[in-house]
């Protein structure tokens, strides 16, 4: 039986009876991902299994002590399929302990089982464990000594049982392989048992992974990354597609007419020929920084008085993040003054808002996060400051101003700064708004105005937002507490400005008014207690409390690391090569895909899986072959001339009574048109 296990490197070969090859070598007996570097290759094992005449023994060991079950009936069957990490085994055993009420009953399953084959030839001996796992519950029959058909599940079952739960924020910077490993840890599986996956794609969108097994997550990622996933020896291997299919895949065994008994070919039956795959993803332009976009919105009309009005909003944004907004309010109006200007179409009010966002760097590109550093709003309109009675001009509306006519100028400047807790809380803890404006405080002795008030200045001066005592200061704070007994959210706002304290005649600058609201709940109760207290400029206070069924308010949060982004629907229509099959269409949303490239990989993989023919080969057992091992098949009747494929599944039939060790191996021949993309 020819074998193609390839060895390269420096090795010391000892071709004695023990036939051990030791040394520092690179082994291409399997895809390179898990066997390279220093290795010891038991050539005796290969030689023994591949021999034409073999002396064999199949043994089933049960229990922690590994009792050799000698009363096996019929053949032992073992199934290994690439679609599952769990090998299964079946055997029939005649034993009193198969009965439920027997002493040391094995009827209820959960018993360790190991199946081993010993192969001897005149030149080599091998003792190979071909299955290990646990028994399942079983039924038994036969009148005198129970005979049970025992099903066993391989050790790989833990990959299916391990249910993890992790939540990943967007732009965490994790690759799919890293996410899979973190998920495995969450499922209490040692992540170092996941081998391979280098160079996998980075996930940008948030992921809430729960209710999945590690195997299921690996399977989903495998479609997107074009991995082939197999369980081997308790570890999970993520094999790149180029190791399994395509020109670079390295065959390790050749099925030839001299080493197999029969071959059955299974062409695809009504495969899907057209996939319409969809997902949502972040547009490339977002991730590359994007370009500044300006949009305009106009609303307008005419009042019943015949006055026309129009509001023009111009918004500037990058990647959907608004950085500035300009609102122009136009109307038919006269400029106020002693003698108002004639009614004309004028810009009446202008509001400009500039927003500064914190940024983060993603792949070398600076992107804005959802944290606002600061926001400045400037309002301008036709204005002249009010003034004392002995100065200024009386306009036609009877009011007194320092100028004889309004000029277009800034009437309010509002600057807000934001403070956040560090990650992972990211809570918006405070918001400080400083306002600049026109105002003169009331004093006992000063300038008398037309309304009878006595103020400090001849006319309202401009008080800048950054003055020691700005026109207005608004402080908002937010906090939350959580314990087993209670959860609390608190919000407060305090406004400082010129105001007249209770009992005073002059205005003072200070905290004029404010309120605090506190929401409290006992976890699980569903009842919220809301308590509010407030104080006003006149010195009065008020409080209130109420309870209701509901949920705690959600405070604002913003991450310093996650850029703002938007998603768009992505749809890929992929049609199989050629017209060999009738058109069959499949429409599906692909979980976890984020780009058209991902969808393309999925479509290519699915076509490769479903359009590729397969053969099932009956041959002497050779369990050293594993799923996704690359092999060649020669069968002149089917025009297979060293046709390269991979092992998709195999079934061992081991007869402990007459020594026969047979195997049915299913080999898939991937069509070249669906080969993976080779990246340098």
């Amino acid at each position, binding site marked *: 039986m020819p074998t193609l296990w390839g060895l390269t490197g420096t090795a010391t070969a000892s071709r004695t009876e023990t036939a051990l090859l030791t040394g520092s070598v690179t082994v291409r007996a399997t895809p390179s991902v898990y066997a390279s570097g220093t290795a010891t290759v038991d050539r005796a094992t290969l030689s023994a299994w591949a021999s034409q*005449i073999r*002396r*064999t023994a199949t043994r089933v060991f049960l229990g922690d002590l590994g009792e050799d079950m000698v009363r096996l009936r019929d053949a032992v069957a073992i199934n290994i399929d690439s679609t599952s990490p769990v090998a299964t085994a079946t055997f029939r055993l005649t034993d009193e302990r198969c009965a439920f009420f027997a002493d040391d009953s094995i009827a209820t399953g959960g018993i360790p089982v190991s199946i081993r084959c010993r192969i*001897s030839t005149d030149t080599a001996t091998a003792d190979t464990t071909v299955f290990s796992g646990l028994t399942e519950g079983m039924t038994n029959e036969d009148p005198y000594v129970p005979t049970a058909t025992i099903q066993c599940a391989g050790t790989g079952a833990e990959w299916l049982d391990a249910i993890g739960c992790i939540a990943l924020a967007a732009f965490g910077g994790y690759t799919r392989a890293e996410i899979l490993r973190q998920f495995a840890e969450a499922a209490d599986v040692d992540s170092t048992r996941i081998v391979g996956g280098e160079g996998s794609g980075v996930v940008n969108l948030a992921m809430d992974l729960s209710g999945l097994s590690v195997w299921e997550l690996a399977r989903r990622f495998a479609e997107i990354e074009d991995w082939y996933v197999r369980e081997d020896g308790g570890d999970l291997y993520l094999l790149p597609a180029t190791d399994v299919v395509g020109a670079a895949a390295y065959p390790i065994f050749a099925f030839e007419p*001299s080493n197999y*008994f029969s071959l059955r070919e299974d062409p695809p039956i009504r495969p899907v020929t057209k996939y319409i795959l969809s997902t949502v993803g972040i547009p490339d332009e977002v991730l590359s920084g994007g370009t500044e976009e300006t949009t305009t919105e106009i609303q307008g009309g005419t009042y019943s008085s015949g006055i026309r009005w129009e509001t023009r909003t111009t918004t500037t944004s990058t990647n959907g993040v608004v950085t500035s907004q300009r609102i122009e309010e136009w109307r038919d109006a006269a400029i106020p003054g002693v003698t108002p200007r004639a009614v004309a179409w004028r810009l009446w009010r202008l509001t400009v808002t500039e927003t500064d966002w914190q940024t983060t760097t993603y792949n070398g590109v600076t992107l804005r996060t959802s944290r606002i550093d600061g926001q400045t709003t400037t309002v301008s309109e036709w204005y002249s400051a009010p003034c004392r009675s002995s100065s200024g001009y009386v306009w036609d509306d009877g009011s007194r101003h320092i100028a004889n006519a309004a000029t277009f100028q800034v009437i309010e400047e509002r600057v807000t700064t934001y403070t956040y807790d560090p990650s992972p809380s990211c809570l918006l803890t405070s918001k400080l708004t400083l306002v600049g404006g026109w105002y003169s405080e009331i004093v006992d002795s000063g300038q008398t105005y037309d309304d009878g008030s006595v103020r400090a200045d001849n006319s309202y001066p401009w008080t800048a937002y950054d003055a020691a005592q700005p026109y207005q200061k608004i402080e908002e704070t937010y906090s939350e507490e959580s314990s087993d007994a209670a959860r609390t959210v608190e919000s407060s706002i305090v406004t400082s400005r010129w105001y007249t304290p209770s009992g005073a005649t002059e205005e003072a600058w200070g905290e004029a008014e404010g309120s605090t609201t506190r929401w409290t709940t006992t976890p699980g109760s569903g009842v919220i207690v809301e308590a509010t207290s407030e104080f006003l400029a006149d010195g009065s206070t008020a409080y209130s409390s109420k309870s209701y069924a509901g949920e705690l308010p959600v405070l604002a949060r913003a991450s310093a690391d996650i850029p703002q982004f938007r998603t768009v629907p992505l749809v890929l229509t992929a049609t199989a090569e050629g017209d060999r099959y009738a058109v069959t269409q499949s429409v599906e949303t692909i979980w976890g895909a984020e780009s058209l490239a991902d969808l393309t990989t999925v479509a290519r993989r699915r076509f490769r899986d479903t359009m590729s023919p397969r053969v099932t080969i009956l041959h002497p057992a050779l369990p050293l072959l594993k799923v996704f091992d690359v092999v060649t098949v020669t069968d002149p009747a089917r025009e297979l001339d060293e046709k390269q494929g991979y092992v998709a599944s195999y079934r061992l039939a081991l007869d402990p009574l007459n*020594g026969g060790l047979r195997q049915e191996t299913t080999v898939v021949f991937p069509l070249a048109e669906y080969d993976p993309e080779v990246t340098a």
Partner: protein
Amino acid sequence: MAQPGIREAVYLDGAALVAGPASVSPTWLKAQTRDRARDGSLYVDSLQPETGYPVIMAKLDLSLGWETLCAADIATLNEIIARGGPLDVCIWRPVTEAFYVASGTLFGGSLLRRNALTTISPLPTGAAANYPVTAKDGSGAALTVVLGTPDATTGVTPWTCATASTGETATISYAPVYRMYVAEAQEAFSQPHRQGQTLRLEEM
């Protein structure tokens, strides 16, 4: 060297039969799977349950036939049939078992049965001379082997030799005592007042 045919009375678990079976039909059941590859190549898997066992495992299926039985033998056979087994049976025909022994290892292994010369008593006249234990190495040269104590349950008999193998197959010929079980018993009444019997015994 044993002469052709069965030249001694069949030993049937020490039973004192007036007349031995008129026919003795051994059949060998090989524990082996043979399949031919697509190009005609033969692949053979032979059961070798333990290291040191013969390279081919075969069990005896034995039919013993009596055309006519006397009353005493009928009673004796009925007792055997009733008991079923295990029965020590020897038909005094030597068997040969082959053992592959790796290079550098002393010849040795496990005979599947007991040696009749040390199991049956009294022995037929001249048995020691007629049914000696003989052993050969791969080249045909004689080996001096020592048989150990058979396993009390299975009858498997260890054998050893002071000679080292060069990676060859040794053969040992001996007259075995089989451990057998009565699988089938068929009485026959071909004529009034005449009773025959067939026993089919399976090696355990």
